[in-house]
């Protein structure tokens, strides 16, 4: 039974970290009927040592926080769904020569779809997370702390879900979040070291996940040539999945100017390198587009971001078909990478609070459109 004297029930996705713990605590303070849930998403098995974000310890931390807050806590096993929707796609994207962002798909499918079903089952009006982003009147905005903003990972959430999302720490800085944790006595999590890695990638080495899923003979981990843009073989690599566009590490030296990965061609198992100028794109094409606002018309001025923490640049929408968009960038942008996200923010000038803050939508980058159209950026 939902107590009638509260603001309604909210299911809080709790990782055991400080952000989602504080999110839950703030909602309790605000009078919500909070139910905590920790999703068990993957299991390394016995071969990988404990890591703070995946082990039973994080479940225990989340439970301790809920005990402290006096709210129920549950563990939900979403391993199968997560394995299919997130981990498998992650591995497949690398096989296609792309650089995926599993967090986007986890938010889209796991947190704000699968977990939402649990919310329905328990009569929870809303679902809350510890993301640094803000939701107002069914619209998504960047987190107030620009250095922590996580909207880049949230563009895939279904638009109608926004009205059921609560993001209580989106208006705080990380330091404020930690301060709230200490004020509320959540010592367990207040000073926890932040994990920057992808949660299911042990030691930050994603090739282990590929190997575990596809075996030692995964083509994306096989030896292949390093080519220049004009097709000269200048070296060998031991797996194109170890590379991403813009990378320098792992490339041979001895060139007149610094060389970067500019493309990956899985059909030839080739990593293509070129000088910095070859990395620059003047446009970008994205697919699997999801809109979180009324879709802008062709010709609309927006701002776009092509990497987490990259600066958003002004852009013009030049094409919008079913599920696919193309944008012309007002200035060249380096290392536009297939598989990463393209996120569109409200554009224009002036002091409209939406400008650069409101998320209009996003998609998965298919290709950069370069000054040199012949750039082999398109994945096979």
């Amino acid at each position, binding site marked *: *039974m939902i*107590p009638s004297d509260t603001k309604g029930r909210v299911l809080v996705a709790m990782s055991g970290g400080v952000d989602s713990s504080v999110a839950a605590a703030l909602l309790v303070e605000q009078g919500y009927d909070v*139910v905590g*849930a920790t999703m*068990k998403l993957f299991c390394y098995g016995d071969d990988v040592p404990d890591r703070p974000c995946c082990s*039973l310890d994080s*479940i*225990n931390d989340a439970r301790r926080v809920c005990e402290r807050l006096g709210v*129920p806590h*549950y*563990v*939900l*096993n979403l391993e199968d769904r997560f394995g299919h929707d997130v981990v498998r796609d992650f591995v497949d994207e690398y096989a296609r020569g792309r650089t995926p962002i599993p967090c986007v798909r986890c938010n*889209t*499918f796991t947190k704000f*779809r699968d977990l939402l*079903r*649990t919310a*329905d*089952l*328990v*009569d929870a009006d809303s679902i809350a997370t510890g993301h640094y982003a803000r939701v107002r009147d069914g619209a998504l905005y960047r987190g107030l702390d620009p250095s922590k903003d996580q909207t880049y990972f949230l563009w895939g959430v*279904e638009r109608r879900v926004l009205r059921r999302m609560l993001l209580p720490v989106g208006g705080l800085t990380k330091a404020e979040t930690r301060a709230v944790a200490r004020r509320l006595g959540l010592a367990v999590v207040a000073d926890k070291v932040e994990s920057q890695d992808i949660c299911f990638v042990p030691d930050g080495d994603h090739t282990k996940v590929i190997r575990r899923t596809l075996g030692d003979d995964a083509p994306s981990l096989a030896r292949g040539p390093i080519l220049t843009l004009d097709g000269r073989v200048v070296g060998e690599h031991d797996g194109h999945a170890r590379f991403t566009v813009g990378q320098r590490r792992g490339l041979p030296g001895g060139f007149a100017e610094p060389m970067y990965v500019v493309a990956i061609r899985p059909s030839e198992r080739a990593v293509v390198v070129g000088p910095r100028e070859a990395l620059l794109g003047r446009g970008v094409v994205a697919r*699997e587009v999801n809109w979180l606002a009324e879709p802008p018309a062709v010709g609309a001025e927006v701002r776009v971001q092509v990497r987490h923490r990259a600066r958003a640049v002004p852009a013009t929408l030049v094409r919008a078909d079913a599920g696919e968009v193309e944008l012309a960038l007002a200035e060249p942008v380096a290392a536009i990478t297939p598989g990463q996200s393209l996120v569109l923010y409200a554009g224009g000038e002036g002091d409209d609070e939406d400008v650069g803050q409101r998320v209009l939508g996003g998609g998965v980058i298919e290709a950069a459109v370069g000054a040199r159209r012949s750039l082999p950026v398109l994945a096979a």
Partner: protein
Amino acid sequence: MPAPPPVYLDHAATTPVRPEVRAAMEPFYGPQFGNPSSAHRWGRAARAALDEARERLAACLGARPDEVAFTSGGTESDNLAVLGAWRARRDPSRRAVVSTPVEHKAVLAAVHCAAAEGAEARLLPVSGDGVVGDADGAIRGDVAVCSVMWVNNETGVVQPVPALAARARAAGAVFHTDAVQAFGKVHVDVRETPVDLLTLSGHKLGAPKGVGALYVRRGTALAPLFHGGAQDRGRRPGTENVAYAVALTVAAEMTLAEAEAEHARLSRLRDALEGAILAGVPNAVVHGAASARAPHVTNVSVPGVDGAALLLALDLHGVAASGGSACQTGNPEPSHVLLAMGVEPSLAASAVRLSVGALTTPACVERVGALFPRLVEKARAAAAAGPVW
């Protein structure tokens, strides 16, 4: 409208301590604090209480007092039985340890441990209805220890322990049964059933958590798990917990005194609960329904509904149940018991165990019987919403 009181349907996980048990323990937290190994009057008083507890618990099992060892609970008793008997034997011509894939983890992990010490682990087959058998003649002359639980903790299925124990005896093997869920639910008497070792747990009977016993038939060699003093003939060194020994004994006696009436009452409650669930959710599956079952457990799967989510929803409505064994919480994997019975993993993942007991009234059953189908309906609606893309 005030929320109705919560309903506890998880008696297979644990039961409340009986008031009589609390009262019986009380003196040992007060004036009778002595150490039973001391020779003075405080020690003698404690020793007398412990001796009496041992005699009375032995009587509950049809055993002799020296055949009862008090332990810290079911897990210790299971480990002492399986590993103790395996280690005491050390016979190269008897290397097999026989058990079943539906045992409690305390037995399975002990068998695993014995295997690491050189035993050949041999698991008996299980039918789709959850009954263990020995059609292949696995219990034969090379078996050191055989351990088969009497009543399964997840399904309530009663195993053919008397037949299997007789077989083990004929083969010269030591036979252990985990009777944690069986005591008070089926007729347990070691004079009639040729078991050599038998596990009891206090907190399933209305005693506190942390006390159990192991019946050890005279002549059964057992290597101790702990090393220390000579308490309990060296089988279980460590200062005896007199209060808990008394608690277990009082709880066991009360359980037996009410066994017949409780069997009838719990059967009615369980059947009513199952009936209501099946009426409201016609495609629900009751695991082990075709087998002889103890009266307190029902294990139900609803195809297409996630069991963990259903439990969460039940709990938020004030109804306590569990998915399989309470010991698995925090690790919501499909039940190894159901998987061993050949239940599809997706159906196993939807299983919910409801167990009736001391706190259960017809009103509880009525409420849950009405609520369960409603929540299933909701869970199905949520699942049918389909993927966004």
